[in-house]
């Protein structure tokens, strides 16, 4: 198994890509701490993973004390932390003139500051474990812009892209790798609202060379690869999973 003996903490693990990652990691032998603000759904995912291989912890990624508790839980229950997936995120739409300061702050808090806080508190635990792998979920919109999104979403995902490289550089000597993943449009609860609009869905599909939205599992497999020792020579890299969007 590709993650045998490893312990992973996944933010936003209650549904969408995070839930898929939790289930896949467990199949590959990891023990998983599922962090999310969605308690019911998060506990359901943990319950789908047999044999004490998963626990749920309430995690609002914008609250430092929540991160401290989540990392402590991993170390208390499973004795170590090897993998952090900074997956939690929120989306937004709109133009810059119409965006309020509150809307800007909300997205930057979750998508950028959440990654900062998770990284900050996972690093000491990974140092105690002798190394680790951090995977930050950015977006194809961390690389290219799109009018149908929003300035704060795009800026937040750009922040994640380079925070990743900063972390990779700073902790390489500790054997802690850090890579970013850049999903294109994925079928998840986060994108459900806009996908249900036929015009939007068709527009998006027309921009994807492979012709369809991605599934959460398509991203989860990329995250698994980066989490595993198969990627032990990779840090600071961007793994784009977007059906060919940014290659055009």
């Amino acid at each position, binding site marked *: 198994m590709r993650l045998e003996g490893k312990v992973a903490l996944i933010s936003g693990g209650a549904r969408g890509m995070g839930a898929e990652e939790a289930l896949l990691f467990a199949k590959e032998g990891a023990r998983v701490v599922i962090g999310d603000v969605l308690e019911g759904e998060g506990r359901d995912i943990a319950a789908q993973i*047999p044999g004490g291989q998963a626990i749920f912890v309430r995690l609002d990624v914008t609250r430092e004390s929540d991160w401290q508790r989540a990392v402590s839980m991993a170390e208390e229950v499973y004795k170590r932390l090897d993998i952090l997936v900074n997956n939690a995120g929120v989306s937004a739409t709109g133009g810059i003139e119409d965006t309020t300061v509150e809307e800007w702050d909300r997205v930057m808090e979750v998508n950028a500051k959440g990654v900062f806080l998770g990284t900050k508190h996972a690093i000491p635990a990974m140092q105690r474990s002798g190394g680790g792998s951090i995977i930050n979920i950015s977006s194809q919109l961390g690389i290219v812009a799109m009018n149908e999104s929003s300035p704060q979403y795009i800026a937040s995902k750009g922040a994640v892209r380079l925070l990743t490289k900063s972390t990779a550089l700073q902790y390489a000597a500790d054997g802690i790798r850090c890579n970013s993943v850049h999903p294109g449009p994925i079928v998840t609860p986060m994108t459900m609202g806009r996908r249900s609009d036929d015009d939007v869905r068709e527009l998006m599909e027309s921009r994807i060379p*492979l012709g369809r939205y991605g599934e959460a599992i398509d991203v989860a*497999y*990329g995250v698994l690869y980066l989490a595993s020792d*198969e990627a032990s*020579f990779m840090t600071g*890299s961007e*793994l784009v999973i977007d059906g060919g969007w940014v*290659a055009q």
Partner: protein
Amino acid sequence: MAERPPRLEGKVAIITGAGSSGAGIGNGKAAAILMAREGARVLLVDQVEDRARETLEIITSEGGEASTFQGDMTSLDDCERMAQTAVDRYGRVDILDNNVGISQRGTVVEVSEADWDRVMNVNLKTMVLAAKAVIPRMIETGGGSIINISSIAGLRAHMSTPYTASKAGVIGLTISMAADHAQDNIRVNAIAPGLVYTPMVAPRMDDDLRQYRRNSAPMQVEGTGWDIGYAALFLASDEARWITGIVLPVDAGLCAVHPGTYSPMSQQTRY
């Protein structure tokens, strides 16, 4: 928990440059061994058949299924024979992993025209011709995955201008082929290996230089053919079914930092 099925179950892979030019494990050899371990049937292509046979012996000893093909990938005829051989032996082609490559140092002033042509032919044209032969066969069976081995030298100056130009060409080829053949369900991706210790570079290495190369990237470790092989395995598999047109650096962080952070250009003269 139940054992998962092999990651390349039922698939057929062509690996060019599947032998190594010396003792040890190069990128192509590692990819071939890993793909066979994950259930692929593998056509091991090399210009020197004995080199492909060494890889075959490893795969056979592990219970995998593979066979060799001797061919010069700068020849379209040989590429056509290679693609047809895969179909004749195994019924289909799902994966093409283009590894063939050589080093070439020097500035444009220093490099001879003949050496320039040679490195562009071996590093770039081989990938064009192999894909040209394989893609129609992939279309017949519903699609496939092509992996082109570029280099971080295709993204950064590396004191090897002809090599860098050829490897940057591989990146352009990759993104353009990805766009051309997405509708055929053929994915095309590039891997950009960093400073890996393989039989290709071994002849010009000594202990000091290997240490210098380790120190050149944030992780301060030496990569191997296995690191590149695992990346190729991932991109070849259906796990990467929504990934096309990407360039994946596998480089211990070298491209993530300012190129001069660990190895100032002025000190690069030795490698």
